[in-house]
């Protein structure tokens, strides 16, 4: 497989994953905007923006944080590299180049999405369209992911999933980081309105709201949520699940065992640690520090993948 092909495949799934994350964040913001805003409480759109890593770009463009502008910035704005529009555009441009390396269905899924978002972008949308837009995005990403199931299980497949899980690990970690303050250990049962909303935001934006209820009995506690999102191997968005899959797809690569070995060496400590760690220890150590280190590690693995395979 061409190095460039591997790189493009890797990035297609990163972009598609990112499109979904951005859409889910928008959905969360939209839900929050329907609830009465408690006094003294921060505008939820701001935290949506920072979770999407778009707060700086947004503030350069707009003076105040308003729903309409946030929606437009996160969904359609061409100057926002993580807007759903840009993610889809980039994924499609990459797919155009490597369409021969995956199935016609995968190409169709991406190209149809691209054709449709061009039409959506031309239309002026109103506030109430947002749920449709986010739902549409999630549907499109699912269509793409579904199309991957018929792929040959070769290196291309593994590069696609490496990209997906690197992106997801990064997105989940950032989201946790933005919201980590609500997970600060509190001995008492947390039942306040604001906290409940905050938690539901976190879970919903990771598409894990219902899953959490399935996975844990009894009361919602900060520790349980942290455990769910950091250490639970059954949760497809948890940090440990992402790491496990990064390791799996990395070691499944048949090309260059030497290169694979070098990257794995860098990763294996984190993998072992996250599989053995107790959530209480992490919370005690400081969730923020833990997550920061995690993000740094993921970024260094990403760098190594680029250096070893794509150059």
């Amino acid at each position, binding site marked *: *497989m*061409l190095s*460039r092909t591997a790189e493009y495949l890797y990035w297609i799934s990163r972009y598609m994953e990112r499109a979904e994350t951005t859409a889910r964040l928008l959905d969360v913001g939209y839900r929050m905007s329907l609830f009465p805003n408690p006094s003294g409480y921060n505008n939820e759109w701001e935290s949506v923006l920072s979770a999407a890593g778009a707060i700086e770009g947004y503030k350069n463009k707009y003076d105040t944080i308003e729903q309409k502008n946030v929606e437009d910035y996160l969904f359609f704005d061409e100057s926002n590299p993580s807007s759903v529009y840009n993610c889809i555009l980039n994924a499609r441009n990459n797919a155009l180049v490597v*369409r*021969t390396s995956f199935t016609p269905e995968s190409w169709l899924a991406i*190209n149809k999405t691209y054709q449709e978002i061009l039409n959506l972008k031309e239309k002026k949308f109103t506030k109430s369209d947002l749920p449709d837009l986010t739902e549409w995005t999630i549907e499109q990403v699912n269509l793409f992911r579904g199309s991957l199931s018929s792929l040959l299980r070769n290196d291309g497949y593994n*590069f696609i999933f490496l990209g997906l899980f690197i992106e997801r690990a990064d997105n989940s970690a950032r989201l946790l980081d933005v919201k980590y303050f609500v997970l600060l250990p509190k001995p008492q049962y947390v039942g306040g309105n604001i906290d409940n909303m905050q938690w539901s935001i976190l879970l919903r934006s990771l598409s894990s709201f219902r899953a959490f209820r399935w996975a844990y009995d009894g009361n919602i506690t900060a520790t349980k949520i942290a455990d769910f999102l950091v250490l639970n191997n059954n949760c497809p968005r948890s940090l440990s699940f992402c790491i496990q899959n990064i390791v799996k797809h990395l070691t499944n690569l048949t*090309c260059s065992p030497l290169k694979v070995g070098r990257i794995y060496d860098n990763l294996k400590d984190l993998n072992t640690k996250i599989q053995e760690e107790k959530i209480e220890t992490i919370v005690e150590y400081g969730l923020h520090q833990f997550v920061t280190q995690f993000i740094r590690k993921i970024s260094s693995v990403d760098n190594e993948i680029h250096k070893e*395979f794509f150059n």
Partner: protein
Amino acid sequence: MFNEMYQSESVIRNHYNNINDWLDQMTSKVILEKNAEAESHFRNIGITFSTNNETARERIIPFDLIPRIFTYTEWLRLERGVIQRAKALNAFLADIYNQGEIIKANIIPKEIIYKKKSFEPSMFGFSPPRDIYSPIIGIDLVRTGPNEYFVLEDNCRTPSGVSYMLENREIMMRMFPDLFHNNRVTPIDDYPTRLLQTLMSLAPIKCENPEPVCVLLTPGPLNSAYYEHSFLSDQMGIEMVESTDLFVEGKYLYMKTVDGPKRVDVVYRRIDDDFLDPLCFNPQSVIGIPGIMDVYRTGGVNICSAPGAGIADDKAIYIYVPEMIKFYLGEQPILDNVETWNCEKEQELKYVLDNINELVVKEVDGSGGYGMLIGPKSSKSYIDEFKTKLSTNPKGYIAQPLLDLSFSPTLIKNQVEGRRVDLRPFCLIGEQAQLSSGGLTRVAMNEGSFVVNSSQGGGVKDTWVLAE
């Protein structure tokens, strides 16, 4: 005028009877639906193109639902004629880059060949595998009568359009399966396999691999034929590479892969000569693979088509193709050339200027239907403009009579109307010479128009060759 479907106003040619019945039972509603379906299919698969005046959105070529049909016997003659021509063109290239017999025999003046920009001096004295310079040749044909076919031009470099031939058939089979149950249409979907076999049969002398590694070299996504590049490499199961993916080391060509360097045996290049090797051709070029020409000349890789193959489809050389056929093959040409006046010659220029109202004038280096004059259809001021151009730069132009291109039934606003068509079949020459069982039919969608180029409002049709 010749109509492909109607023998006379009321008589349908036999081989169009089924299509005529089919058309009769199609309602406007179905036509609208199927047109929309075809358009959305082409958009979804991304078979789009760009023109000189680029707009923001990619365009798709209008697709006409009514197929153009050849009988088996009609096709047999075309097949023999095209293969004959393709063989002669390759023989010509092998000759002029070596002994130059055709020049010694005073059939073609040497200055016509050696002064052309498309002649590549560095190819002199070098013979590519099997002496094949141009393994994929697209011949543009028009029809003016039941047995009258003329070759408009030869395309020996990197003819495009074969993806349309294949996709047009795919969409027709998908939309109208019954048509294919009721008609015996020769399949064309083995073209990519045959193309790959052709390329593999042209492996360079130093290739040790029983299954030579072929790649398709594309200029990149901005090229107007990019869809075709990815389509063909996909269908052939070979890598589509850009020049940055390739590099030369120690007399061999390699591509950069995740496993490290991998040797490449045959390059099916879809880029121009100028961008092949900055060391050899255009030093300003940022695309290109430094050193590839050296590897090529020492038998480490084959480049298809060969650098310098373009001289064979030069409009000034075109005039001599019938002579080539006689000279190299000892055969009479099966397909006719269009009578052509070479404005470089004083006598002929005079004739052209005197009769310009009746003629088509083309730039020698022009393509895509740009920069041409159709005398009978042009305003006086446009004709005067061309007269000046001809007088100041005669060698830049040739002239031909305006051929009465055949009409093919075409759906225009849900009505069947006659529109002019041409045909580009694709000829492959490697271990064997073969013609695609079909081709790309282009149709001038505007009433009365002679120009079939997609950049000028042309559309395409599925082309059927009926089985014996």
